[in-house]
């Protein structure tokens, strides 16, 4: 299947407004739910359904266009730039939470404990507070808790994600070598490892909530821990879904060595999620 030399300009797109509608329903529903309205959850579910239909429809449309050779190399470059800068925006999103962790650990908690310009803060407001990380703050918000260790499940999870990065690359080699079997096996392994990671993360959360007293409400430690690992876990789920779509398309016979943007995008995203985890492992668990 040859790719076109022309720049493909699509017309009359219906999926974007459908997606927007779904997203608004979901968010307005969530807002109503947070405000204690009973109708909130129903709207969220409806919005999610619309959003999923949009994703399925839009992906199918794009995959069909791609397979019928409508995308020139130049179109492919636009898509790649789009994905690249989307991932950059995601990096900035995570940077906020890493920045928050850095600021609280190195500035606000020590100030509360009387360091630097915080001497009067400790003396007048929190005389009994000693700044030691991990902490739930001078108000002991959320009560006693046990911090999460690094070398149990989290370390295992690190190995799992690193392995999944390798299997993803192995699948890519399969694609390039026109080895469809290797492509499918590699992708399946990657998705499987991703799901295993999520399952282990879930069990870690379960243990934190039921046995360690560690919750989202456990002061700044609990807040940063769950916010960072939680958003990461969410991104792993999204990555796994994207990879599953790519797996399904591979199984249907899509992708050629010279035309496989969707695979590349999924792989980049997966590696991004992988790298974020390494940052998490070091800054949230180890240090």
């Amino acid at each position, binding site marked *: 299947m040859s790719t076109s030399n022309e720049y493909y300009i*699509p017309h009359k797109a219906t999926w974007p*407004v459908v997606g927007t509608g779904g*997203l608004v329903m979901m968010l307005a529903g969530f807002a109503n739910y947070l405000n204690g309205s009973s109708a909130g959850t129903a709207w969220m579910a409806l919005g999610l359904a619309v959003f999923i239909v949009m994703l399925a429809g839009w992906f199918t449309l794009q995959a069909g266009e791609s397979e019928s050779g409508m995308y020139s190399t130049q179109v492919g470059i*636009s898509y790649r730039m789009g994905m690249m*800068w989307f991932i950059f925006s995601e990096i900035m999103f995570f940077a*906020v939470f890493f920045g928050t962790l850095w*600021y609280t650990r190195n500035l606000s908690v020590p100030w*509360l404990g009387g360091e630097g310009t915080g001497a009067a803060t400790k003396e007048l407001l929190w005389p009994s507070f000693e700044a030691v990380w991990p902490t*739930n703050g001078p108000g002991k918000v959320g009560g006693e808790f046990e911090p999460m260790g690094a070398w149990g499940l989290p370390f295992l999870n690190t190995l799992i994600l690193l392995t999944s990065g390798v299997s993803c690359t192995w699948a890519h080699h399969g694609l390039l070598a026109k080895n469809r079997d290797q492509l499918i096996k590699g992708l399946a392994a990657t998705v499987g490892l991703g799901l295993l990671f999520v399952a282990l993360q879930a069990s870690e959360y379960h243990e934190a909530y039921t046995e360690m007293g560690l919750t989202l409400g456990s002061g700044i430690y609990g807040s940063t821990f769950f916010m960072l690992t939680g958003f990461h876990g969410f991104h792993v789920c999204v990555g796994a879904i994207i990879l599953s779509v790519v797996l399904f398309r591979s199984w249907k016979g899509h992708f050629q060595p010279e035309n496989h943007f969707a695979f590349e995008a999924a792989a980049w995203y997966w590696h991004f999620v992988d790298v974020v985890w390494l940052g998490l492992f070091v800054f949230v668990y180890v240090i």
Partner: protein
Amino acid sequence: MSAVVAEHDDHHEHDHGPAKGLLRWVITTNHKDIGTLYLLFALAMFFVGGTMAMIIRAELFEPGMQFVNPQFFNSMTTMHALVMVFGAVMPAFVGLANWMIPMMIGAPDMALPRMNNMSFWLLVAGVLLLASTLFMEGGAPAGGWTLYPPLVLQTGKALPFAIFSVHLLGISSIMGAINIIATIFNMRAPGMTLMKMPMFVWTWLITAFLLIAIMPVFAGAVTMLLTDKFFHTSFFDAAGGGDPVLYQHIFWFFGHPEVYVMILPTFGVASTIIPVFARKPLFGYSSMVYATAAIAFLSFIVWAHHMFTVGMPIAGELYFMYATMLIAIPTGVKVFNWTATMWKGAMTFETPMLFSIAFVVLFTMGGFTGLMMSVAPSDFQYHDTYFIVAHFHYTLVPASVFILMAAGYFWLPKWTGHMYDERIGQLHFWLSVVSVNILFFPQHFLGLAGMPRRIPDYAVQFADWNMISSIGGFIFGASQLLFLYIVIDTIKGGTGEKVTDEVWEDAAKHSLEWTLPSPPPYHTFTTPPTVIPTEHI
């Protein structure tokens, strides 16, 4: 990279025009249609935000509380800012980018047309979600557009809606920015090297990078507000080890580049218009490009000058003071370059040029007060007073808004094929430029004399200047109805004079859009242009 266009429909009809009826606007992927949608939406929001400003100025006309209660007043200042920033100025520039960038670089359309449609509709959704909070129990957000905790956490039912609205606006902006970057890097006509691009394209390229870097940061910040309010986290609560000031750091890491998102494309339009009417190339094209990049870079490392009084360690105060002062250098270069562009030109003063000159003068005044505020000890007096209000309105209203007006007058003939009524245009300009100064100049005095910002009522010694400011505000507000009239009139036929492709004398030497018919056909540059204008460099 050249772009030969392939066009395909789902229905195999070889109809390359727009869809019929209103649906055209809902499902369009055409950069001109989407540009028009953005511009009209921005104009509508300009009047919505303007109405809020009129309510504010009416309450401040005299001391005492006459019309609204203090809570509603605070909602008005908050919503005025949010609507103007996210609903009017930013979308207006995205609209200009949509219309002009493909035509300026010789591209057939934006690089990712379907996503282009989605970013517009997400914007509408975000603004509607925000506007809906006006009618909610507890009122619209009233903690200021900066949404500082813990105050903003006292918002009623509006809080989650406002937060999700920020998320939607963020996604919309990121999509728009990605599209602009991909278009500029991937869709330029052969021979259109980066250093031959019109300044408007350059400034938008740099702005797009700013947007991608900062919108996720804002999204992250408001997400933490959401979890602090509803999920028991302690990010901004000292009792749990957090810090309310942390929010301010994150917010202004977003917020300072954000104000440059509104001013850099302004610079770009000014640098495009002034050479055309001075009949001279832009002075120092490459130094303009570098200065824009330098301002963008500096915008990321100066954020805490918005926070000199929050109680930072002295090293922080000094660092942010020095870094902020540096901004004056590239900004100065820009102002000097515009002046040098006019120097020894053969100037004419049509409405776009008048607005552009007013921009250079009045923006520079905003720059001067900015320089004064960069000095941290002095800022201990200026901070959160009307001096600040005057400063940022000078950099936004007679700067960004004036340049948007200039852009409207400059390109309306190209977009519609009709000429606007120059007499009404000039009347609009003179009314605007006089009233905007009556509106904002006295606010310098008020701030220096000790009037804090965001107060619904004030001590009687501030009464006179407030009344003058309000009168200026009412005249300014009313004058903008002239602009609305001109836009509608021009779309409907204007003076009836058929404009040429070039519209303005020798404009085609400066930029590619003037080589196209007026109005341009629905699809332009389906085969790339062969001659690249270079007069502007």
